[in-house]
């Protein structure tokens, strides 16, 4: 049973606006009055060319409107044709981006699947696509939120769930799932956005009896729960894969456990692996490499390169040549004590003394990681990769009695300190580090062409930092920022949009 609340008049106006819908061509060159995908564009840079909000006038930013939801906003909204679509588990709200008024809400009763959060929706043609905690993919009418179809992505009874914001590439909708408490093969599905039919499945770890060509050493997991990025010239999708399972028991899964904790490049038409790069060989600390693989075209040591960059949960920043997966930079951006160095191909070498043990190991970073899923940004002017980072320590326990299924151990956190850090992509060196308070940050990062970086601290403040040196230029007590800020132009006005607590807050300069 599903419930939809709508308001006839506004719905019909929105329906007219949406008649043109989202096309593959539009996603290749998003209009300024849109944020049509989870990352805003295919590169995942989370950087805007808009220049209306500047260091000189940022102090005049004021609230344009505020929209109250019934759950903490961790998702990144999508904006198409003047309508924002924002999600939480089992919920989607369509909100007028000019006024903050609700146009419709889709909600469904709580299932008995696993609830942790939700990343966001996808929009294609005149439909909004949302994953659910019980691992369904729903296609909703963008005009009124009514369910057009509902397909099962994975079996939630086995322990799968989904928080994923799907990625649309051509006529493919790429949908990922999660599942750390059971030994489940890692799968990314390509769904036909018109019909809901499965086009292909990429397995990061092989299911029983399936030969994927890459043995995983007995490991399952490697779930692709975060939205990937896409290079149309190379026709490759880049996705980060999650940690292996069993999570903390590394004894029963010897070797590297490919392709867990990796950046993989896939052909979106076939799901075939072009290349993979493992950022955490044989992970035993729950450090997903699901973080955004950011695509940057720039000089590297004086030579133009097509690169993919990731600040990974394991504490290392990676730069790869995205045509072939060859490593250009591996450097720590936060406290790490689990590796013995970097090998010739750029992979950190895990120190077996820091694998979980019966009496515990003090490991840095902790389970929540040196960073997590919230978006970093790449500022092309300064060449800085800006990311929410954490210097943190945790305890890791495993003994044979913990078994070889699911979590298989214990990993309590000890302490952490949060920072916004700017990394020079050519050297991996930290250019500046802005403290944001105890614990891991909960805000993503957005940079703009005027040299501004928007993010949040671990208190209740929205921050505008100077991108070049991290100095605070402005702040506002709007509530704890829980998502990644976005920006868009509507009617000639630049809006900044953040999730603060249970609210969506739009700001603009007068």
């Amino acid at each position, binding site marked *: 049973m599903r419930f939809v609340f709508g308001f006839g008049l506004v719905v019909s106006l929105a329906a007219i606006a949406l008649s043109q819908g989202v096309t593959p061509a539009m996603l290749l060159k998003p209009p300024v009055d849109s944020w049509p995908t989870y990352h805003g564009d295919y590169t995942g840079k989370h950087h805007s060319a808009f220049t209306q909000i500047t260091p000189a006038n940022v102090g005049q930013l004021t609230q344009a409107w505020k929209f109250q939801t019934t759950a903490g906003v*961790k998702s990144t909204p999508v904006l198409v044709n003047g309508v924002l679509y924002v999600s939480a588990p089992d919920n989607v709200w369509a909100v007028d981006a000019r006024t903050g008024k609700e146009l419709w809400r889709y909600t469904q009763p709580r299932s*008995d699947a*696993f609830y*942790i*959060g939700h990343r966001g929706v996808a929009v294609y043609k005149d439909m909004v696509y949302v994953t659910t905690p019980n691992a369904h993919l729903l296609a909703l009418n963008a005009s009124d939120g009514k369910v057009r179809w509902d397909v099962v992505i994975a*079996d*939630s*009874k*086995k*322990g799968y769930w989904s928080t994923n914001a799907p990625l649309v590439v051509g006529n493919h909708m790429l949908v990922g799932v999660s599942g*750390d*408490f*059971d*030994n489940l093969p890692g799968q990314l599905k390509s769904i036909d956005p018109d019909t809901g039919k499965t086009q292909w499945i990429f397995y990061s770890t092989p*299911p*029983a*009896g399936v030969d994927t060509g890459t043995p995983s050493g007995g490991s399952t997991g490697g779930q692709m729960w975060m939205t990937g990025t896409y290079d149309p010239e190379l026709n490759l999708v880049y996705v980060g894969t999650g940690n292996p*399972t*069993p999570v903390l028991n590394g004894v029963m899964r010897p070797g590297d456990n490919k392709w867990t904790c990796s950046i993989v490049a896939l052909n979106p038409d076939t799901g075939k692996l072009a290349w993979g790069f493992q950022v955490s060989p044989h992970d035993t600390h729950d450090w997903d490499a699901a973080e955004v693989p950011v695509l940057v075209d720039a000089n590297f040591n004086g030579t133009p390169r097509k690169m993919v960059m990731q600040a990974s949960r394991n504490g290392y920043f990676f730069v790869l040549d995205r045509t072939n997966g060859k490593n250009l930079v591996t450097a720590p951006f936060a*406290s790490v004590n689990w590796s013995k160095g970097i090998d010739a191909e750029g992979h950190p070498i895990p120190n077996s*003394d820091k694998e979980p043990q*019966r*009496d*515990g*190991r*003090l490991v*840095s970073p902790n389970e*929540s990681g040196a960073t*997590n899923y919230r978006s970093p940004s790449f500022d092309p002017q300064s060449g800085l990769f800006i990311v929410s980072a954490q210097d943190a*320590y945790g*305890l890791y*326990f495993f*003994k044979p009695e*913990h*078994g070889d*299924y*699911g*979590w*298989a*151990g*214990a990993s*309590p*956190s*000890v*302490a952490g*300190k949060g920072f916004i850090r700017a990394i020079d992509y050519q050297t991996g060196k930290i250019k500046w580090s802005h*403290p*944001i*308070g*105890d*614990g*891991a940050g*909960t805000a993503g990062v957005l940079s703009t062409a005027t040299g501004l970086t928007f993010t949040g*601290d*671990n*208190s*209740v*403040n929205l921050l505008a930092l100077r991108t070049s040196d991290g100095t*605070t230029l402005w*702040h506002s007590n709007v509530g704890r920022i829980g998502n990644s800020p976005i920006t868009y132009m509507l009617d000639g006005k630049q809006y900044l949009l953040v999730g603060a607590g249970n609210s969506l807050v739009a700001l603009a300069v007068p």
Partner: protein
Amino acid sequence: MRISIWIIATLLSAGQASQRPPQTVTPQTYTPEQIQAGQTRFSSQCGFCHGRDAAGGETGPDLTRSVLVAQDLRGDKISPIVKMGRQEKGMPAFDLGDADVSAIVAYIHDQKAKAEAHNGNRRNVEPSDLETGNADAGRQYFDGAGGCAKCHSATGDLAGIGTRFQGLALLQRMLYPTAGRPAPAPAKVTVKLKSDETVAGTLVSRDEFTITLKDDTGANRSWPVTDVTITMNDPLAVHFDQLGKYTDTDMHNVRAYLQTLR
């Protein structure tokens, strides 16, 4: 140094494993040979629909979660279905001998037993797991290289700590004392105002813009940090720095030493 009132529960929330399969009504055992033979038969005859691990395939259900399998005793319910099929559900009849069917039954029950045993949730740590440290070495580290004795005393503030905390709770309290009873000492802070007045108290919160302390009267007082000069004695900062210095051996030794302070 910042004290945050936020607890990051985002990714640290308690886990929930898959929904438990129905419990087998009559427990039954099979020999490894039967199970092995059954795996081969099952894989070739049944795996295409039910998955090679019996956990479900493209068209056949997950047999480890089947109520019928839970109620089966040595094939009394499964065997007829294998031999007769279930035409209405699209399952064909299989012309197999009794030995082959028995082996398949053995494999299905073994897979089901494995599924029932699955508990993928986060696990507990027992106090006995942590009894690896050397208390004497821990005392030396405490009094010497670790610098713990600069602030703490085995006969003063830590007297009896080994009675109040054990195992992992003691280790966490030692590494970063933010929880448990008695409550750890809050940071002491002195704020000097532009008027040269000074206000002393304990830290309530501090971020980049505002500091709040509780003064001697118990009142909370706040100032913009740019308006005051702050002098803070935050014991937690010392503990945080120490996290980057401990070896695992030091850590276990100090915990063992503290456990002796009863």
